């Protein structure tokens, strides 16, 4: 197999895993201010993902690094064309990260209140911005040999915003289900009710996305030429339905697992549709950034493949170990007794 294709697959895997893992942190972050009715409950929410959020965010750094190393031209143009959007994303991720650490460092309601809102906003914005960015990448960016002809405002087009809404709802349901399985009692029940409340909206927006993608993007071309690939979006729809079926049956872990799969499959659906483009051009097909015209040399791709094949499994292994160590539910007693928790 060509190394460019290997790296296209890895690129897709890195983004999907990032969204699956940070998705529940972003979702729980958006919800924590509202699901947690008092300081202790909010601490419980933050401590459910406390041990893992940082490691989850590294998938984003790795996705960025992999784009840089394997497809430097795509990295260069994607990051400079989407300058303002990425800037807002950076600010949000920075604020979110420090908020977790700073929030509990002063015993003051005002102080905590400020950081609580910071967490909500800094979790909402990345979800929106990632959605808008990928929505626009699916549509193609207005670029040709002369450069980029778009702006931050032109990213906020209907399909971009629709994808933004899709990401927000995916993460809200995902985060709520994560909190359902990681907390106890009333808080867990509230989280479950929230997941069920957002689920119909997610279903509608997902359907709108699939419908709008036909006129707005060329994502369907690959599926029409290789119908077998349609299995991926069909599975995505199936797991999306599975979420609600499982919560109705009280199979909460299954519901969360289905939500994980839904995110992986939704992102995969989009990325498969892009192939062999990484970023299509909406105005000049020749200027599209493909895995061939924007990739690194074969030598670099080979070295990076060796590194990825050796180390990504190791990373996955110790991450699984960590999730097992911290698999227990987080209760009120836990945060009150553990002086080290957030």
């Amino acid at each position, binding site marked *: 197999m060509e190394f460019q294709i290997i790296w296209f697959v890895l690129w897709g895997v890195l983004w999907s895993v990032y969204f699956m893992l940070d998705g529940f942190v972003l979702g729980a972050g958006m919800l924590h201010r509202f699901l947690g009715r008092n300081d202790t409950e909010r601490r419980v929410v933050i*401590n459910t993902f*406390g*041990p*893992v*959020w*940082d*490691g989850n*965010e*590294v998938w984003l*750094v*790795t996705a*960025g*690094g*992999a784009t*840089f*190393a*394997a497809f*430097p*031209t795509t*990295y*260069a*143009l994607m*990051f*400079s*064309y989407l*300058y*303002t959007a*990425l*800037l807002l994303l*950076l*600010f949000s*991720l*920075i604020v979110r*990260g*420090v908020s*977790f*650490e*700073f929030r509990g*460092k*002063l015993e003051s309601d005002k102080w905590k209140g400020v950081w609580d809102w910071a967490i909500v906003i800094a979790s909402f914005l990345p979800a929106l911005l990632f959605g808008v960015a990928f929505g626009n990448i699916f549509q193609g960016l207005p670029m040709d040999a002369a*450069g*980029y002809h778009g702006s931050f405002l032109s990213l906020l087009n209907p399909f971009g915003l629709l994808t933004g809404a899709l990401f927000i709802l995916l993460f809200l349901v995902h985060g709520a289900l994560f909190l359902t399985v990681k907390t106890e009692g009333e808080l867990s029940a509230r989280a479950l009710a929230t997941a069920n409340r957002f689920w119909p909206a997610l279903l509608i927006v997902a359907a709108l996305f699939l419908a709008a993608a036909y006129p707005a993007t060329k994502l369907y071309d690959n599926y029409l030429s290789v119908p077998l690939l349609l299995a991926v979006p069909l599975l995505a729809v199936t797991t999306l339905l599975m979420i609600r079926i499982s919560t109705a049956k009280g199979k909460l872990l299954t519901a969360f697992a289905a939500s994980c799969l839904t995110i992986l499959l939704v992102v995969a659906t989009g990325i498969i549709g892009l192939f062999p483009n990484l970023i299509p051009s909406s105005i000049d097909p020749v200027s599209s950034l493909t895995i061939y015209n924007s990739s*690194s*040399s074969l*030598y*670099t791709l080979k*070295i*990076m493949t060796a*590194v*990825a094949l050796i180390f990504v499994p190791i*990373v996955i292994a*110790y*991450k699984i170990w*960590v999730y097992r*160590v*911290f698999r227990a539910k987080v209760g009120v007693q836990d945060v009150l*007794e*553990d*002086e*080290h928790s957030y």
Partner: protein
Amino acid sequence: MDVVELSRLQFAVTSMFHFIFVPLTLGLSILVAIMETRYVRTGNELYLGMAKFWGKLFLINFALGVVTGITLEFQFGMNWAEYSRYVGDIFGAPLAIEATLAFFLESVFIGVWVFGWNKLSKRMHVISIWLVAFASTLSALWILLANGWMQHPVGFVLRNGRAEMVDFLALLTNPYGLLKFAHTVVSGYVVAAFFVMGISAWHLLRNSKPEFFKSSFRMGAVFGLISIFLVLLSGDYTAVVVADAQPVKFAAMESMWETKAGAGMNLVTWPDSENERNHVESLTIPKLLSYLAYHRTDAVVKGIKEFPKEDRPPVLPVFLSFRAMVGMGFFLTFLAIMAVFVSWRGTIEKHTLLLRIMVYSLPIPYLANQLGWIVAEVGRQPWIVYNVLRTSDAVSTSISVAQVTGSLVGFTLLYGFLGCIDIFLLAKYARKGPDADASSLIQSARKEA
């Protein structure tokens, strides 16, 4: 200012801010790991208390270091797209490898360490902080190999309109990168040593928890002395590779305009860049510069005038930063020797003058670290990749002055605000001292068992 200057300023602001927090992370992770190891080995709860107290400060510092690192990775693409496109084939690899090998390890195990006190065996818990310490130093290795490549590009050919990697091993064994790694990492260890000694001295002057802080001070002193010795050693070798790979940077560091054999070093001098000479040159130590550059007293050292004007870095900031850094280095060496001496005599608390100096010296290693980066990065100008790509050709073509001005203002305000909070919290928790008294220490130890 144009997009190039604004982008440079933004990179300077964001990377120097990031580097306020990185050196302490590098060094303090090791010190905390040593403290916890001692606790596990001896069962002495003093060391557990130390690991927890310094660990808390470590985490407040770590929070801002980790989130501001992502900015740097993104900025290569956002502001320096032409650079990224041109050198991504060889420069992207170490960054991606850093994320995969080191950053994952660090970020995952910091979570394990913070939340694992009651969930892991003592042994596994101390291993997790060692993994954090190892991973942060490993992370520095890859980042500095990447930077070392910008300073002294090796293992590539210019092909297909870009620099393509042909020899990965050359990148890994680039002496410039490896020395930079050594010098930067041990400089970080010095920051941590003086951080621990400074805060301990503050408490010892107030006679608060003397046993706790004498023990911390001692550990900081020994760690500091070893590290500063390694700083001097690696610095000496760095001078040799700089003189070899970037002779014009070396000349600017010493403000030496004319080429000379057996060049001496002027202890007192001041560059006059306009007239390509120095205003004053006195207290010259004969042949020292030749020795520093080539480890031979009669070697020829090239002067700045040897190089075309368009290839020279600005002399004054490079010269001043280098002088100040070296001066601070020697001052810190003196302090570290004194600190070890009084620790060894067991009379730390009696030397109030030294303790007071240690408190006020806490920022000096930070400053020396920043100045070192100014020497390295400003001294490489006008090149972004030395002799391969000019900084002015590296900037993104699609971004506007308004965009970069906006982002620069945004970064400055956000970083300024968060930096103040972080320093405020560090000071608050440093002053507060170890919160647990003996009984609650025992309690938490029981919980662990």
